[in-house]
């Protein structure tokens, strides 16, 4: 792969890609995950890739509920002889991720366990309250 934004991990079958590997990648800094498997019908383990398809389909629904955009996790069928097609798909996805911006899950979503900020009518004077207190728990 010529693309330097891609970190590739080889597995024996796309069926090895468990959902928690995808989640771990997203949590630990990946902006997106591409699962590339053999075409259905060409799986060395017969139906490993069909399992991948089902897992991926369910995982996408789950990710949507967490607010992860659909472009960030994609599934592609590609055989060994389809190098250029794969490269093209990687480039396309890279562009999509650039457009979405970095995910930075740990920093931007987990952050510190901040308190919920107050926006509504304060009772007792917001300025007075904010002058007084310091926080560390």
């Amino acid at each position, binding site marked *: 792969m010529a693309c330097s934004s891609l970190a590739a991990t080889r597995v024996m079958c796309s069926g090895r890609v*468990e*959902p*928690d590997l995808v*989640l*771990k990648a*997203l*949590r630990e800094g990946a902006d997106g995950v591409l699962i590339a498997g053999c*075409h*259905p*019908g060409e799986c060395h383990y017969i*139906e490993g890739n*069909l*399992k991948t*398809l*089902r*897992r991926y*389909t*369910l*995982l996408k*629904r*789950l990710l949507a*509920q*967490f*607010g*992860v955009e659909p472009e960030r996790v994609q599934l592609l*069928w590609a055989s060994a002889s389809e190098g250029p097609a794969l490269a093209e798909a990687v480039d396309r996805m890279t562009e999509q991720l650039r457009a979405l911006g970095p995910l930075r*899950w*740990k*920093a*931007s*979503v*987990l*952050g*510190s*366990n*901040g*308190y*919920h900020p*107050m926006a*509504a*009518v*304060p*009772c*007792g*004077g917001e300025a007075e*309250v904010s002058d007084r207190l310091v926080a560390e*728990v």
Partner: protein
Amino acid sequence: MAQNGKPKFAMYWAASCGGCEIAVLNIGERILDVDATFDIAFWPVAADFKYQDVRNYPDGYIDICLFNGAVRTSENEELAHLLRRKSKILVAFGTCSYQGSIPALANLTNPDSIFRAAYLDNYSTDNLQGVQPQPLTQVAEGELLLPAFYRTVKSLDQVVPVDYFIPGCPPEPHQIWTVLQAVVAALQGGTELPPRGSIIGAGSVAVCDECSLEKHEKQIAHFYRPYEIQPEAGLCLLEQGLICMGPATRSGCGALCPQVGMGCRGCYGPLDDVDDQGARLVSAIASIGVAGQLGADDEEELARKAGLLMAGIADPAGTFYRFSLAHSLLNRTRYPGNGDGKGEKL
């Protein structure tokens, strides 16, 4: 070990429902043995000790503290730190303190929506002035304080070091008794307790192993909502298309829910060496589904059929993470404006 008198017992509830307390009471007559063995040092449901009493105890005074409930507010966290200091053994008791449980479902939404639903847009609430609770309110006589509400629900081990975890929502009484017996034996007879950090009062296999329903090969072509079919008695519910989280849930409860025809919802948490129970369930449930046929369906059709099958699962995140969201890898949903870039405090 207490220097005078009996070993000291404490039980405290953070963001909880009281079910863990009732589960302890449900050990029945054995509560008399607990009474014979321990002095109660702090147990708000049952005894009149106050926070100030706990603050006044020397560090390590409490021999065993069963801490249930998730960490939702600053008061919950303060008590976690306080009881950690005052207790020799701190147990995350029940799924709320272990993994967040039901209160951690709030991590799938955000504080703005939550506040709106309770105070501003609430169907039966009359609040034209838009009043909301405040950590500090000035009233005529003085100041009134309320604990601050956190953005994210945390498990106990995400705020203090925890010695043991007892899973279950709530833990089943027979398991509670097994644990209490082991603790008493250790305190009195000097037997060894399990290594610190262990999950105790539960099994090490999946719920399916405990379940008496008959199991055959699993090939689910359609998922049903619980009111859409009348399941055949005595047969595995999952095989009949009713979601059951038994395959990726720790045993210990006796597979109670499937026995009455309702699928397991995973309250005993994941098995050993599993970080994220929900992801494991996605994997397990998807693995045993059946969608499309090789040779008969092209790639597009296969994808379409997989989509149809999975559409039958109504709420993946809220179902597969029903009890474990605080321990999940992603931990919470994103929402506009959240995160302050200060990095992870977990």
